[in-house]
């Protein structure tokens, strides 16, 4: 697909966003007193208008770049985002160690790594390094889940 065509699609999406923002901004309650400039919806409405106008200009401008946009192996990137969404969900109930080790290993395979010793070692090292820096040094409470507990790793979170 050419960039010009994609820009028209982006312009249409931007115009829809501007319209949506304007409509949602209408539901923001106004100030109990004071002038229109104290209305919390005043600035979002201006932005909605700006986005609507600029997007319309983008969608309707004649010509535009005719070079083709290649999405290459975009499916790998989209798969990464899908797997990561599952990881975010799993992190809460499985626990940091179980979810992160598996996720890092899957990401490495997705990136093209095929040497299993490297995959296992890297996923373990990265997960443990993340634990040490964030839990031990920065004292950030990482999610403790049932799988981590079953693996006997719960003591690491103390």
């Amino acid at each position, binding site marked *: 697909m050419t960039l010009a065509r994609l820009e028209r699609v982006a312009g249409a999406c931007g115009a829809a966003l501007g319209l949506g923002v304007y409509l949602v901004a209408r539901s923001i309650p106004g100030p109990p007193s004071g*002038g229109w400039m*104290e209305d919390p919806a005043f600035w979002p409405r201006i932005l909605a208008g700006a986005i609507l106008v600029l997007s319309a200009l983008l969608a309707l401008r004649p010509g535009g770049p005719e070079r083709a946009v290649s999405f290459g192996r975009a499916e790998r*990137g989209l798969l990464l985002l899908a797997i990561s969404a599952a990881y975010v969900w799993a992190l809460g109930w499985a626990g940091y160690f179980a979810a992160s080790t598996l996720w*890092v290993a899957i*990401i490495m395979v997705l*990136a093209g790594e095929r040497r299993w010793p490297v995959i296992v070692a890297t996923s373990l090292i990265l997960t443990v390094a*993340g634990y040490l820096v964030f839990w031990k040094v920065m004292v950030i409470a990482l999610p403790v889940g049932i799988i981590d507990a079953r693996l006997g790793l719960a003591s690491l979170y103390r």
Partner: protein
Amino acid sequence: MMGWELVAAFARLADPVNLLALGLSVLGGVLVGVIPGLGPFLAIVVLLPFTFHLTPDASLLALVGIFIGGSYGGAVTAILLGIPGTPLAAATMLDGRPMAERGEAGRALGLAVTASVFGGIVSVALLTAFSPLLARLALNFGPAEYTLLGILGLTTVASVAPGSTLKGLLAASFGLLLATVGSDSPTATPRFTFGLVTLNAGLGLIPVLLGLFSIAQVVVMLEGDTSRSTAVSGVARWPQWPAAGEVRRLAPTYVKSSVIGTLIGALPGAGGVIAAFVSYAEARRASRHPERFGTGTPEGIVASEAANSAVTGGALIPTLTLGIPGDAITAVIMGALFIHGLTPGPNLYRDHTDLLATVFVGMLLANLFMLLIGMYVVRAVVYAAGVRATLVIPGVLLISVLAAYAVQTSMLDVGIMFLFGLIGYLMRKLGFPLAPVVLGMVLGELIELSLRRALTVADGDVLALLTRPYALGIIGLITILLLWPVLGRKRLAPATGGAE
């Protein structure tokens, strides 16, 4: 103006935490500059959550350390491998690589690091000398001027960003919109929170930045060939100190390029890449042998490296004095100031001179660290360029997830990061610049509140805002910037027969 504070800053820098933050960040900056695909901006974004746990001194030193180290790191691979680790080093490669190919890689590395350090030091000197004066001038600015300065910053970045001005303005508007999510601070009214209490505090800058830059970059890397690694064996060379005679001969280029870099850095939106190429073009124009440029001439390396490093000090001038960041990196540094409860602008110069003096002296020290790293450690650092993407990708991803989570220990922030990763990827594919989004997000609250305050003071009279002399000047600049693409095209049309 800050004489004693500068002296006292040396004592504060003797604090082991400050010194360690500075030294490690310069080394880290060089390292991420060396690894193709990463870069100082990504490193600064990832480092930002860690700075919560540091003092304002240490956190700012760490961020400027990466900024300074990263501005040089890309030159190493540009010279040794012909791959600019960062776009900043693209101009350096024009002469650095040919010089290395004829067996003078050590000389090229030595010239690059000394020019970087010289450029960095000159820019810090100019920052220290002139920024307090600009801050004093900014004391005359009221809410109207701040609104317009914010818009000027956004307009500049949007108009010079890659792509088109239209896309830049759309990206900036999107950033401003993101800044409206959460409670409206004067009235505490929730906006665009969709009932999610977590969003009352607004969209976190860090998850959004990590998504737009870190996650989107990983997705782009995944599109390419991730299985191959760059061959670095046998390329490492010890850098050589430039000979005294060569330094004397190149002295005008060192000085001129450093000043060009600082001035271009101070212009919002211009940045190191433009500075390096402008300085390179000027060195070529002024040279008695312009035909030697591109064949491995030392002037080319010095011009590019001195200028792109001098941008570090220049870019901080509008950020610290006016609160208007010139690019995405300084926008993040400004975000770090906000995180520590500090507001950039003239009041920062009045109330926190000690902090600013520490940062300025720290930048000087960071350049000296870079000289040591560049001359004696870089031989080991260059091997980082050979790390496979299959190892870099999971590392960057895991750090990003943990960094986003660490802000509020919230999984929602991690989800937001991945959502913005998708948005950032699509924006990159469609040629939308990302820097205006960051600037819009950082400047959003300042612009909105200043505008509302200015309008309240003027009793809603918009025209009253436009009659102030400083405001009129800023409006003039904004108008020129917006009309520039149209005027430029008209000027270009006769020369190209309208076929540009």
